[in-house]
């Protein structure tokens, strides 16, 4: 398996803006079919949320999805088991809170991710200062640790994060939790600042809810992450075809008019 970062650098080198949809693992019994639909519609990588009881960095949509998934009995184990059903070539990135891994065991978690074909992890409450143990575990299992950069992150810290992040840098467009759409978008500035100090691909997330927003973000970055808006489609009862349509609309917006 190629490393997450080499895959994503490859995409960039190929001139393709990455589209990374987010799914909450275990949200519906057939959630892996949603992942497949997204890939079918042009997703370049997929973020897979492992639900946590206290999702401090998530807005109401993903909170709701997490609670629903938990209520359905979802665990890291069940998600990994589900992933055995999934056949896809795009990289998978887990997204969850540190306690899920810590409690499961860092080494054991990383191994589990690797065994399930997951090649990266986003842990939004794990800062670079606290990440040594987790990164060491990941290194042994070829799991990349993706760090976030926020609009509030000062330059010297961006340098550290730029150096630490693996796979890509997650540039938060807003001072907000997932789904947050208020406040000024600062994605472009953040991406520029990351690029000043690092060559890692830099994707914009947080508050990318419409194809237009995705297109604008893709113009100034290496890719976009679409979370709450997509999860909302599924919470509203959408199935694989709705997911596919949703992702396709973002794909098309990002890639620009074909005609």
């Amino acid at each position, binding site marked *: 398996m190629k490393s997450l970062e080499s895959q994503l650098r490859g995409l960039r080198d190929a001139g393709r803006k990455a589209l990374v949809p987010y799914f909450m693992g275990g949200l519906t019994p057939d959630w892996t079919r949603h992942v497949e639909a997204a890939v079918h519609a042009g997703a370049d990588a997929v973020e897979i949320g492992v639900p946590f009881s206290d999702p401090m960095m*998530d807005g109401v949509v993903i909170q709701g999805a997490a609670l629903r998934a938990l209520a359905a009995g979802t665990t890291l184990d069940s998600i990994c088991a589900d992933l055995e059903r999934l056949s896809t070539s795009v990289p998978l990135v887990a997204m969850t809170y540190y*306690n899920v891994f810590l409690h499961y065991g860092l080494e054991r978690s990383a191994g589990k991710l690797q065994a399930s074909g997951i090649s990266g992890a986003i842990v*939004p409450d794990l800062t670079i200062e606290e990440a040594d143990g987790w990164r060491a575990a990941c290194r042994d299992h070829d799991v990349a640790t993706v760090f976030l950069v926020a609009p509030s992150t000062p330059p010297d810290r961006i340098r550290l994060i730029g150096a630490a992040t693996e796979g890509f840098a997650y540039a938060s467009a807003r001072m907000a*939790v997932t789904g947050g759409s208020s406040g000024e978008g600062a994605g472009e500035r953040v991406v520029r600042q990351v690029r000043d100090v690092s060559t890692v691909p830099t994707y914009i997330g947080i508050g990318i809810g419409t194809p237009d927003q995705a297109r604008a973000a893709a113009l100034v970055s290496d890719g976009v992450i679409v979370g709450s808006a997509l999860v909302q489609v599924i919470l509203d009862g959408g199935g694989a075809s709705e997911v596919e349509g949703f992702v396709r609309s973002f794909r098309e917006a990002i890639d620009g008019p074909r005609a």
Partner: protein
Amino acid sequence: MSSPDSRGRFGNFGGRFVPEALMPACLELESAFVEAWNDPTFVDEYQRVLREFAGRPTPVTHLERLSERLGINLYAKREDLAHTGSHKINNVIGQTLLTQRMGKHRVIAETGAGQHGVATATAAARLGLECTVYMGEVDTVRQSLNVFRMELLGATVVPVTAGSRTLKDAVNEAMREWVACVDDTHYCLGSVMGPHPFPWMVREFQSIIGREALGQMRDLGVDPPDLVVACVGGGSNAAGIFAGFANSSARLVGIEAAGGAAVAGGSPGVLHGMQSLLIQDEFGQIEEAHSISAGLDYPGIGPEHAHLAEIGRAEYHPIGDEDVLDALALLSEMEGIIPALESAHAVAWIAREAGHGIPKGSSVLLNLSGRGDKDVAQVRAMLRGES
């Protein structure tokens, strides 16, 4: 008790586990606090406000009748007499002064039953700071009078509809909101929890309890007491009083609610920005605490307590709801002090262990963290339901 290391660690616990967006604020807060805490002007003002506004020093009362009954020498540090009815005011006075010093004009806070929310609204009103309090929707209904109290004090109360809609979720929500307004807003956390520097800073702001009590016990000829006992939710009142006696020979005892006993029933984990002991299921999902007292209804414990437990400097014991009502009635009837349900946990442990875990004749200093007025309606309902 000593300062945490540069990463905010007390031994294996503490640290800073927050969204990257909040890191600058945490770092700014840390340096602002360090600077202020070393600035005599700030410390003087903090102490002056506690004295002239909040009613410090609070007395130590020798509980003569209860002492006789229990065969020990029992003293109470009377945080119930502090303005707004508990030790919570010490912390918020400190944090709101710091907010002002940082040039921010707004505070947000989480609250469970409303004690910390009322205290924050109070301290904010005094300085003319805007104040928004996040409170689980369930709690806004259970404690609607405290909602009104905060509103009277000029604060906005936002019901939190996420998750279990109680304290734990109110903290999550306050953190989330802080992300969006961190520029002009300070998050006034209510206990020795959360990301560094909160556990340390809140302990420092509460340590006035212990410093006062140490001198007062000396004046009473008890230097040091054999035991110092406090209830533990997040652990701020306990940390505050322990701070005065950590370097003494006193046994330090924290009492948790059995339904939220992070030391007795928890395991290491990360929540609300800190590494500590938490009650959680086998997959690391945080469990809801269940206690008769809203202030102890928290699934974690401050990291410094986890550390003190680990190194054996302090011990932590659980007390079940059933003993708490009896203890509340006991202190009321014998001493004319209706304690908060939280504080009644500590009373209950002392009453149970006197002559057993606490040798006869011991001198015991109880931190009476708050008054029971807020709980009287609930206690009545429970006693009626039972009888």
